C-alpha cells in the first residue's frame, strides 16, 4: 500500500523527540553556537532518548525497530528542527554503530554494538571527509595498505566530530582503490588529532582534522572482515539522515518566518498579507513537504533492503537546495532582523549551507 501515516509507535517517538527539541535543544542552541561549546547535559539527555539503541536489533542489545530508517528519519527531522549542531552531536555514536551493524562481521557486532545501548554517551567518532576540493568518498586519498597481519593507514581527514575526546575511531581509507573502514583505538601511534576546525556553522560541535601517519591496526580491525564494506550502502544511510535533518532545519526556519510575517506589521498590515511574502512562504511549505516525502521514501526503501542509491542521492541533493532556499528566504522575510545574531535565522542559513558538505556526518 501507499500510505503516509507513521505507526503509533513512530508517532510517539517523533513526539518525544519533538518535545525534547523544543524544551531542551531550543533553550540552549544559540548560546552553544555563540560560545562554540557543546551543552553536554543536553547532548547526554538526547542520547538517553535511545534513538540509536532502538535501531539496533535485540540480538545486539537494542530494541530492534521494524522500520529503523524510517523511524530514524522521523526522529532526525525533529532533532534537526531543534538544532543541527546538537543533533549531529547526539548522532555521532551512530557513525560507528550503524556501519558496524550494516557491514560488520558477526564478531564485530557482538563486540561493539551492545555498548551503544548503554546510558552513557559512547566516546566514538568516524572520519570520512578529507580536506580537499576533490574529496570523493569513493576515491579517498587516505590509504590502507596490507602488511602481513596489519593494515597501515596514512592520510589526512577533516570534519571529524568530537575527535578530541574519542576513544574509538572508525576511519575510512582506500584499500586498492576501494573505500574500506577500520576501527582504530585512541592512542594508536601515528594517529594525531589536530586543531579544532573553524567552520561557518554548527559551531557548537567541535570537529577536528586528523593526521594518520602510518597508523598500524590489526587485520581484524577492518570493518566487515574479508568481505569489507560497501561504502555506497553506508553513504545511503548518511544521505537519508542528512536529508531528514535538512527537512527539520527548514521546517524550523519556515515556522519562524511564518510567525514573524504574521506578527510584523508594515504599511498597516502584517507583512504576511502581502503576496510577495505569502507566496515565498507557500513555496517554502511545498518544498519542505516534497523533500520530506522523498526522504521517507528513500528511508523506506533502505528498510526494505533495497540499495536505493538513486532515491537517497536525489533526496539529499533536493534537501540541500531546499534547506538553503528556505533558510535564505527566512532571512529575507525577517529583513534586518534576519541578519543579526539575536534572531535564529542567520544561524539556520549558515547551517543549511553545510548539508552539501557533511558527507558521513550523520547516519540513520
Amino acid at each position, binding site marked *: *500500500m*501507499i*500510505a*503516509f*501515516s*507513521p*505507526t503509533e509507535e*513512530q508517532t510517539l517517538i517523533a513526539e518525544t523527540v519533538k518535545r525534547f527539541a523544543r524544551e531542551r535543544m531550543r533553550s540552549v542552541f544559540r548560546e552553544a553556537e555563540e560560545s562554540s561549546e557543546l551543552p553536554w547535559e543536553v547532548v547526554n539527555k538526547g542520547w538517553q532518548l535511545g534513538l540509536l539503541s532502538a535501531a539496533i536489533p535485540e540480538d545486539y542489545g537494542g530494541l530492534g525497530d521494524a*522500520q529503523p530508517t*524510517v523511524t530514524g528519519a522521523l526522529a532526525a527531522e525533529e532533532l534537526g528542527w531543534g538544532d543541527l549542531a546538537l543533533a549531529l552531536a547526539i548522532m555521532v555514536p551512530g557513525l560507528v554503530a550503524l556501519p558496524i551493524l550494516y557491514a560488520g562481521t558477526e564478531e564485530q557486532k557482538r563486540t561493539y554494538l551492545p555498548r551503544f545501548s548503554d546510558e552513557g554517551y559512547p566516546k566514538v567518532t568516524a572520519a570520512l571527509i578529507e580536506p580537499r*576540493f*576533490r*574529496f*570523493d*568518498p*569513493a576515491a579517498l586519498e587516505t590509504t590502507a595498505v596490507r602488511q602481513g597481519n596489519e593494515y597501515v593507514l596514512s592520510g589526512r581527514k577533516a570534519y571529524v566530530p568530537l575527535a578530541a575526546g574519542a576513544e574509538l575511531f572508525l576511519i575510512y581509507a582506500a584499500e586498492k582503490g576501494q573505500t574500506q573502514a577500520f576501527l582504530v583505538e585512541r592512542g594508536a601511534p601515528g594517529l594525531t588529532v589536530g586543531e579544532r576546525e573553524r567552520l561557518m556553522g554548527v559551531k557548537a560541535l567541535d570537529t577536528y582534522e586528523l593526521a594518520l601517519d602510518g597508523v598500524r591496526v590489526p587485520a581484524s580491525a577492518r570493518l566487515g572482515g574479508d568481505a569489507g564494506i560497501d561504502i*555506497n550502502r553506508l*553513504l545511503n544511510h548518511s544521505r537519508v539522515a542528512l536529508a531528514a535533518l535538512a527537512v527539520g532545519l527548514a521546517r524550523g526556519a519556515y515556522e519562524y518566518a*511564518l510567525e514573524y*510575517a*504574521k506578527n510584523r506589521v508594515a504599511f498597516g498590515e502584517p507583512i*504576511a*498579507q502581502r*503576496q510577495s511574502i*505569502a*507566496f515565498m*512562504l*507557500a*513555496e517554502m*511549505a*511545498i*518544498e519542505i*513537504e*516534497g*523533500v520530506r*516525502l*522523498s526522504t*521517507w*521514501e528513500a528511508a*523506506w*526503501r533502505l528498510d526494505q533492503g533495497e540499495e536505493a*542509491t*538513486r*532515491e*537517497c*542521492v*536525489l*533526496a539529499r*541533493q*533536493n534537501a540541500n537546495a531546499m534547506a538553503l532556499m528556505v533558510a535564505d528566504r527566512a532571512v529575507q522575510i525577517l529583513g534586518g532582523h534576519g541578519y543579526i545574531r539575536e534572531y535564529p535565522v542567520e544561524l539556520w542559513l549558515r547551517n543549511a549551507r553545510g548539508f*552539501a558538505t557533511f558527507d558521513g556526518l550523520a547516519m540513520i
Partner: protein
Amino acid sequence: MPIEFKTPGAIQQVVSMAQMVAEQVMRPKAAYYDEHEHEIPWEYINMMWPIVSQSPLLGADDSRNGHGEAERKRSPITNVRLIHIVEMLSWGDAGQYLCTPGGNLGAAAIAAVGTPEQKRRFLSRFQGEKPAWGAMAMTEPQAGSDTSAIKTTAVRDGDFWVLNGEKIFCTGGRLALEESNGLVVVWATVDPKAGRAGMKPFVVEAGTPGVTVTKLEPKLGIRASDTASILLQDARIPFDHILGSPEVISDTGGEKGFKGAMKTFDATRPIVAASALGIARATIEYVKHLLNQEGITIRYGAPLHQLSAVELEVMDMEAQHRAAWLLTQKAAWMMDMGLNNNLEASMCKVKAGDAVTRITQKAVEILGPLGYSRAHPVEKWMRDAKINDIFEGTGQINRLIVARRILGYTSRELK
C-alpha cells in the same frame, strides 16, 4: 497503516493495462493528433470506452448510481488508483488522455452536489453503449481565476431555467455536446448581485436548443483535446437540472454551491498534477534513453566536481519529479482516507506544474538540435506540459490557496 511506498497489486494491474493502451494506442498516434489539431482520437476513445463504462476506473464515475459512498468505503484506493492511471495515460499522450470518455468534471460535480435521483438520471449515460462525455463550463471571457465575476445568468421561468451567456475554455465541450449524448455542467448566477452566493451549477445536456459550440481554441499543446467556447442563447433547461439548492444563501456559512465546485478541485487538482507528471516521466525517460545511446549514464552519488552539467540537470529533473509525484500521491491518499486535502491538492498542483514546465523545457535544451525538432517528441511534451501550470487554477492561484491555508487567512485577508 505504516509509511509505505509500495504500489498495491490492484493498482499495478490497472496501470499495466493503461501502459498497454499508452504504448500501443496512444504513443503511435501522438504526433499525428498533435499535427492534426482537433481531429478526434477515436481509436483511443473506442479502446477506452468499454473499460471506462464497465468499471469505475476513471474518477467520479465510481459514484454513479448513488453508490459512490459505499464504493469509496469498500476501496480506499480510488483516488490513488486514479492518479496512477492518469499518470500512465498522460505518459502515453496528454492530448488523447484528455479525450478519455466518461463523466469527467461534469460527473464529478453531479456526484458531489447532486441528489441521488439526479445522479441516476444524469450519470447513466456514462455506462451506455456509446462513448459519452461530461464537462464543466466555468470560465468566461472576463472571468478566469476570478470565478465570482461570472456573468452567465439563469433566470427561472416556471418549470424551466433560461440560461444566457458565453463560456470559454471548456475542456471537452465539443465531445460532450456535439460528439456524444453528453452533458456540460454550466455555472451561472441566479442573482448577479449576490456574488458567489448566487452562483449555481446547471446540467445542460447535449441537444439542448440554444446551446452552441462556437469555437475550438487553437492551442500550444494538447491539441487532440478540444477547448470549446459555448454560447447559451435563451437555453431552456428543466428546473430540476440545477445541482444543489436554488436558494441564494448569503455570505456566512453559505456559498454551498460554490463551495461544492471548489471541493471538486480538491479531487481534480491531484489528477491534473498526475497528468503533468506523466509527461514529465516520459520526458525524463526519453532523455535518459537518448543519453544512454550516447554512452552517458547518470552517476548517482558522484561528487559535484565530477558530474557533468547534463548529469546534474537530469538528477535535478528526477528529484523534482519524484517530490512532485509523492506530493500528488499524498493528496490523493488523503482523499481516500477521507481527510481534508485542500492544502495538499494545491501543493501538489503547484509543484507538478513547476516541475513539468522546468523538466520539459530543460529537456529540449539538453537534446540540442534534436530537442527542438518535431522529429523527436520532447518539444511536444514541452508544449503539452505548460497547460498543467494554467488550468484548474494557475500556479499563482494555487500558491494563493496554499498561502491562505498555512497562514490561516481568509480570501479577504490575503488577496
